[in-house]
């Protein structure tokens, strides 16, 4: 008889692996999750915002029990040059009611809690073990090899939830080598600051309310990327992510870039007096829709960052990971009824992913990476022009407002050309809004 240790082996105890494990264990499936870190979450990093919906569907009102920091009631988008910022801000008391739209969260704490829940459902979680490769027999994935002695494990299906560096999908030929233009490197610092100071500085009325800032523009020296700042309970997460190709071309060290942002005159006062508690780095899939690899093969499904399931425009990742994990689990449950774990049977996963909100979002932004690669000045020259214009507009310097508008119109024409501008607007419309 063929060896079988578990029904399903999940590789990686991140949000997608844990979500898959939760659904499977809840349905009574004999499930093992293998995690390479000391505990689930110990190797995981994210910018810091976690959208509630996908998790709340899984564990209703999870936020009452889970280690969440603050729920976000204010979102800001800043265009920055080296000395200014021009921002769009949205704050609403509507975000102040349950189930809350999003939270600031620490992965190391949250995932550990989530893992406990998954264990309570009956899944087995094994830490400190690296899955080195899939075991393939007769063209089918039948298990995994780990770096432990006696470390082979066999199962009906393996779910590769092994993150952005996913070696499993690569080894199985589901995807190509990752190119430096479709992944970003994000570095982040957690800076400790008193609750009261955070409340004052960000105009929050309690320790539970939070604010989020996202920043892009010419201060990144023409690199494609985004910086962010999120409030946690008694700390601030500040970070920056830049496409690796750009780091290479601009000969930029990510830590130096982060230091530059921390010193920015609009940012520095927000973090002043804080003490750095942690420095982190992680890759973020930036390729979007087109970078998604093949999602399945015989006896194998893959989820989360490993399928580049990240919405960079709206900064969503963990919730999409959870969504994909759930869908993978559901696919297994359906396949189990017929006992058919072939590629054909598991292809339902692809349909499910396509129909999900997440995929629709990704599809909407599918040309964004290309657009930004081609028209880098969207992030540099345009914002710079508007920053300069606003500066001019608010400056009382003897020049009349109509003259200022006239001057700006002329400069805009000289710099960009109105025909080009119309083309760019069309491109945005075509690529994003459709």
């Amino acid at each position, binding site marked *: 008889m063929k060896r079988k240790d578990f029904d399903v082996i999940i590789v990686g105890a991140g949000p997608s692996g844990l979500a898959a494990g939760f659904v499977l264990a809840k349905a009574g499936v004999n499930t093992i999750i293998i995690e390479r870190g000391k505990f689930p979450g110990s190797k995981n990093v994210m910018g810091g915002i976690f959208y509630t919906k996908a998790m709340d569907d899984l564990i209703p009102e999870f936020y009452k029990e889970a280690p969440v920091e603050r729920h976000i009631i204010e979102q800001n988008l800043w265009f920055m040059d080296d000395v200014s910022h021009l921002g769009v801000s949205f704050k609403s008391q509507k975000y102040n009611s349950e189930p809350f739209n999003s939270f600031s969260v620490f992965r190391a704490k949250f995932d550990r809690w989530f893992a406990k829940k998954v264990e309570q459902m009956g899944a*087995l979680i094994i830490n400190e073990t690296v899955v080195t490769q899939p075991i393939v027999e007769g063209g089918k994935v039948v298990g995994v090899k780990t770096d*432990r002695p006696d470390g082979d494990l066999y199962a009906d299906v393996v779910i590769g939830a092994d993150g952005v560096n996913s070696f499993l999908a690569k080894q199985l030929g589901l995807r190509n080598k990752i190119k430096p233009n479709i992944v970003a490197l994000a570095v982040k610092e957690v800076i400790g600051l008193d609750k009261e100071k955070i409340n004052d500085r960000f105009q929050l009325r309690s320790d539970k309310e939070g604010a989020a800032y996202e920043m892009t523009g010419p201060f990144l020296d023409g690199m494609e990327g985004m910086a962010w700042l999120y409030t946690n309970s008694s700390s601030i997460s500040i970070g920056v992510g830049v496409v690796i190709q750009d780091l290479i071309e601009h000969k930029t060290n990510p830590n130096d870039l982060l230091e530059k942002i921390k010193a920015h005159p609009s940012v520095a006062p927000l973090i002043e007096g804080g003490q750095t508690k942690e420095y982190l780095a992680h890759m973020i899939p930036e390729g979007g829709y087109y970078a998604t690899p093949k999602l399945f093969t015989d006896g194998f499904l893959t989820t989360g960052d490993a399928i580049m399931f990240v919405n960079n425009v709206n900064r969503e990742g963990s919730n999409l990971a959870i969504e994909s994990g759930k869908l993978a689990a559901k696919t297994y449950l359906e396949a189990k009824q017929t006992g058919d774990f072939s590629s054909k049977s598991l292809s339902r996963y692809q349909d499910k992913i396509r129909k999900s909100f997440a995929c629709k979002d990704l599809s909407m932004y599918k040309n964004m990476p290309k657009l930004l690669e081609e028209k880098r000045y969207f992030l540099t020259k345009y914002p710079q022009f508007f920053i300069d214009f606003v500066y001019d507009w608010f400056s009382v310097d003897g020049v009349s407002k109509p003259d200022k508008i006239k001057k700006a119109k002329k400069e805009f024409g000289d710099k960009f050309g109105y025909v080009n501008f119309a083309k760019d607007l069309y491109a945005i419309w075509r690529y994003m809004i459709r």
Partner: protein
Amino acid sequence: MHLLVFIKQVPDASQVRVNYNTGTLIREGVPAIINPFDKHAIEEAVRIKEKFSGTVSVITMGPPMAESSLKEALSMGVDNAYLLSDRVFAGSDTLATSYALWAGAKKIIEEKGDVDIFLSGKQAIDGDTAQTGPGIATRFDIPLVTYAIAIKDIDLKKRTIEIVRLIESGAETIETTFPCFITVEEEINKIRYAPLPYLIRAARATIKILNTKNTKIDSSKCGLKNSPTKVKKAFTPQKRERGEMINKGSMQDTLNFLYENIESTLKDMGKI
């Protein structure tokens, strides 16, 4: 052969940082680990078991979260794990701790039979006291061998064991009889990478809880109230200041100056 290992769950002291501004330790998020010296005691017990056959039990005193350390011990090849956990133990000093662990160990002996070798690490990295092991050995009134760096030989018939231990001038080999208590240095062994089946077994295992209800532990000998030593205050040491750069022109003059500065210290130390 029955081996019993005493372990302690400690905050990973290598990750604890000092906040010199507030004079406190930064402990947030610092993971709890098995005291590294105790981990070597577990490894040694398992190695002895593998060579001579028998069982290894492990006990720790601590809050319910200490269970994770016991599971880790099980994944290293330990057979039975006990958690000594009761509110009355909170705040125990070394005397009270050695009492509770001794009493807990007696319960394990009742359940699993006489113990031939007791082991623990030479000290815990949070308290650095090195007193709990000697305390337990004294309560059992059995030979104590501290700072062990090797188990040389075990004679099961004669029930004797040869142990190499560190002393100031080097090492000495000691022969003693079962039952005995050994505290170990990190050098005693290399911790092996446990096989996957051990990890799976450990993840599935249940930990037995010992408390004042299911043992004969006298709660009037435990906890903060019944500990002879109390903490008056805790504070962080002063940050070290930058000293003096010596440059007296020539290397000879520089070195002479250095010597003159440390001469009195060398004298006090009896070096000159």
